[in-house]
């Protein structure tokens, strides 16, 4: 039985290969050797590994549809892959499936400075879009910290966020239209009809809105129209230190309640501050129980006015030290410290788990107290460094595998995620569900919720071959091991990108 199934799959893959080679010609790069395929067996969530049957690297957009059609024709599952920096196993291949690696489709096709729109290929890196737009004083707002390498296709699939998304919104708010190869092999532009002249108001259901954040389960994006923003006239940044965590949390709420929407509000607790300071010497106060980095931007007048207010609010909430960046270099130093947090954690503990949960902002203090209790009960340290303005926590559970603490750490990380849900929050703020948290979905959603989502998925992908096994819990998946230990992305080790 087993052998026949394997033979069938091998034959199906062979058939896919024959078809795509015939249709796409020699420019389609094919990786079929075991060693070559190995490089694609995992994304940045390295605990999960599945060797794909075949890796195809289109050299041209027009090759994507024939690949998808061949997979559908022969019943072979496939997954699109950008840079493989996903942290939830979204680009994990299916057993004996096809990986469509889009890294070569990385061109910025058009930047229209009047309409403030860029048309790009899916493999373009997030940062390359801002770089291309920069000459017109424009930029692409969502800024995941992996932006040097992660692709816009991956961002679209994960609805990625970043530090500045509090004010500017997430990927979903900045994608005007997506040209896709649908799971039935057809092509359509979601959100418009002409990707080269994208409109804001395509009629009918907002399928673009569904596609963004569907974690690659609704088709393969082949071209994307993104909105660009004008660089703000002014930017002001400060670091405020607090004697305790609740004061810092209250300051966050007070700023918002005062009617101010900062470009970013980031928070670090004492453990995180010390780790960062030791690593980067950004000038943080090692004694502070908590620090906030608050950045405002916008028209110069308003920015100055509100920055004054924010400074006052910090003082009113027991801030012990206020450090205001005097110039761009100081601002960069402040951010460098924050961005180094995850790498710096390695100094405290060789192993840690990174969690990604969200709570309503007003419940941050409660959440942090709850995490402290869970941490004490488990006997493991947890450092917190996070997007406070969004209530998006990134607790880092520190442990030692050598001391057999792995399972306790995993249980603690899962408890923290579920604590977020219990406080009225979410399982994930930016890393996605993928295979990593699929088994926790029933904690947040009822069977009816999941059925409705599944109906939607089935409308895009009736044959179920497009990135199967992600987002939704499956018996096979939930029988397996869950969250995994932190493993640095190769680019983190070289210092090119940071995780936060």
């Amino acid at each position, binding site marked *: 039985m087993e052998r026949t199934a394997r033979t069938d799959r091998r034959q199906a893959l062979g058939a896919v290969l024959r078809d795509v080679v015939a249709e796409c010609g020699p420019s389609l790069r094919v990786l079929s050797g075991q060693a070559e395929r190995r490089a694609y067996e995992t994304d940045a969530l390295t605990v999960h590994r599945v060797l794909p049957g075949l890796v195809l690297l289109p050299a041209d957009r027009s090759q994507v549809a024939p690949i998808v059609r061949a997979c559908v024709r022969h019943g072979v599952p496939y997954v699109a892959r950008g840079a493989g920096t996903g942290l939830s196993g979204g680009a994990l291949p299916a057993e004996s499936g096809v990986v469509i690696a889009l890294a070569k489709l990385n061109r910025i096709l058009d930047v229209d400075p009047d309409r403030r729109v860029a048309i790009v290929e899916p493999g373009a890196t997030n940062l390359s879009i801002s770089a291309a737009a920069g000459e017109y004083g424009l930029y692409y707002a969502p800024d995941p910290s992996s932006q040097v390498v992660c692709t816009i296709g991956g961002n679209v699939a994960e609805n990625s966020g970043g530090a500045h998304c*509090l004010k500017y919104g997430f990927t979903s708010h900045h994608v005007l239209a997506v040209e896709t190869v649908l799971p039935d092999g057809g092509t359509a*532009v979601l959100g418009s009809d002409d990707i080269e002249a994208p409109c804001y108001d*395509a009629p009918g259901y907002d399928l673009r809105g569904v596609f963004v954040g569907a974690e690659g389960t609704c088709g393969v994006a082949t071209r994307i129209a993104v909105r660009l923003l004008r660089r703000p006239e002014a930017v002001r940044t400060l670091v405020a230190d607090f004697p305790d965590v609740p004061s810092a949390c209250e300051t966050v709420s007070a700023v918002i309640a005062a009617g101010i929407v900062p470009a970013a509000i980031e928070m670090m607790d004492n453990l995180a501050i010390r780790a960062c300071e030791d690593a980067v010497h950004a000038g943080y106060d090692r004694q502070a129980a908590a620090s906030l980095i608050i950045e405002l931007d916008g*028209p110069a007048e308003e920015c100055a006015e509100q920055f004054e207010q924010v400074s006052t609010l910090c003082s009113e909430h027991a801030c012990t030290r206020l450090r205001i960046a005097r110039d761009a270099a100081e601002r960069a130093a402040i951010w460098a410290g924050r961005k180094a947090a995850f790498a710096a954690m390695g100094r405290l503990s060789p192993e840690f788990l990174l969690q990604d949960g969200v709570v*309503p902002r007003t419940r941050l203090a409660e959440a942090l107290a709850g995490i402290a209790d869970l941490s004490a009960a488990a006997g493991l340290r947890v450092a917190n460094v996070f997007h406070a303005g969004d209530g998006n926590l990134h607790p880092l559970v520190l442990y030692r595998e050598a001391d057999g603490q792995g399972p306790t750490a995993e249980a603690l990380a899962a408890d923290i995620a579920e604590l977020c849900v219990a406080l009225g929050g979410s399982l994930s703020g930016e890393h996605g569900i993928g295979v990593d948290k699929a088994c926790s979905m029933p904690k947040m959603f009822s069977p009816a919720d999941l059925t409705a989502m599944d109906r939607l998925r089935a409308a895009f992908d009736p044959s179920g071959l497009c990135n199967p096994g992600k987002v939704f819990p499956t018996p096979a998946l939930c029988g397996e091991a869950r969250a995994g230990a932190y493993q640095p992305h190769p680019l983190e080790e070289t210092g090119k990108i940071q995780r936060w």
Partner: protein
Amino acid sequence: MVGASSSASHADGGPSAAQGTSADGAGAPEPPAGPRSITPTTLKDLRDAVSTVGAVLIRGTGTATTWGAPVRDARTTVSLAGMDRVLDHRPADMTVHVQGGIRLDVLQSELAARGQWLPYDPARSEATIGGLLATGDAGPRRLAYGSLRELVIGATMVFPDGAIAKSGGHVIKNVAGYDLAKLCHGSLGTLGVVAELVLRVHPLPQTSRTVMVRDVNTALAQKLTWALTRSAIEPTAVEWCEPEQVLAVRFDGTADGAAARAAAARSMLTGSLAELDAGEAHSFWESHAARVVAEPGDTVLRAATRPGIDPGLVGALSAFADRAGVKALLTCSPATGAYTVRVTGADAKAHAELVKNWRTSVEAVGGFVMLRRRRPGVDAMVESWGRAPGSVEVMRRVKGNFDPENRFAPGRFAPWF
């Protein structure tokens, strides 16, 4: 607990709404032959109300039932008028949880009492929030703040089979699961009832200023719009109206900040300029909204194109209007490419002719034209929707998966599905 336009309310767990009938409340076992109206007050009653037999029309306040193609013989109208409350407003979280039947103007005044607002200004301020999401409507300020799709962070929907499903939640940052609320954006009551929404709200701006330039022809309007979008003064709205040929530019912000930006705009723009005082600005934006809404007997078209004011399209519109002997009043949001045309005068045949002709021009540049309202008789001569988008097959499957019996607003997207 049910009844035509009854305001009856009762606790959860009351008798099922679906068993009730209209005004007489006789509780007859068979549904009556004529249309009946149900006004549930709880989620459970709403569920029971939609899991009835026959076609269902979901009704908000009734400002947009004419949008899209006419619904075929709805047996039941389910009104959200009994589900019109704010469930939870958390100012410090900048979120508000409301029932789908709350009117936008009511919501805005409740938010304003706490110094906040939903930065969203469709012309139909008396419309319900569920209906606004379902119509995918947006006003001039969408340039700065987006439309409702950008402001919804969670939703509870009731599907035709009675399933109650949620997506999203109360937090502004959330990527767990599919975004079902987005699916309802533009669905015109064909997929499910938007029973509850969680919205991201914003601080009320201290002030709003409007700068107006007169005698701006199409080419100049285009030029000035691009000058504004290329600058760092961040207008909240840019609107151009024809035949008056005025360009109105709005700034929301702090008192000093908005004043500074308006001043910057005055020095950047050229021509016959004026900054409106508060009263003038209010009446300008009111009349702008009134034109978009129009009146019975008018035909109203909405075109979506790439951002810009296409001189070819504007020219074609007035030429076709002249030829048909009708008046076509246009408002355009050049920076987002939305055109709303109110057609008055002459007869249905003339209206239909204008729709057909201008739709051809708009589709030739990759856009769409839908009918929001039409003079009686127009439907027989021209379709409410033009060319179907390439993704229509997916929309059909979505509709089929959620409403296999085609009970919710059947015909709304005719001829597409």
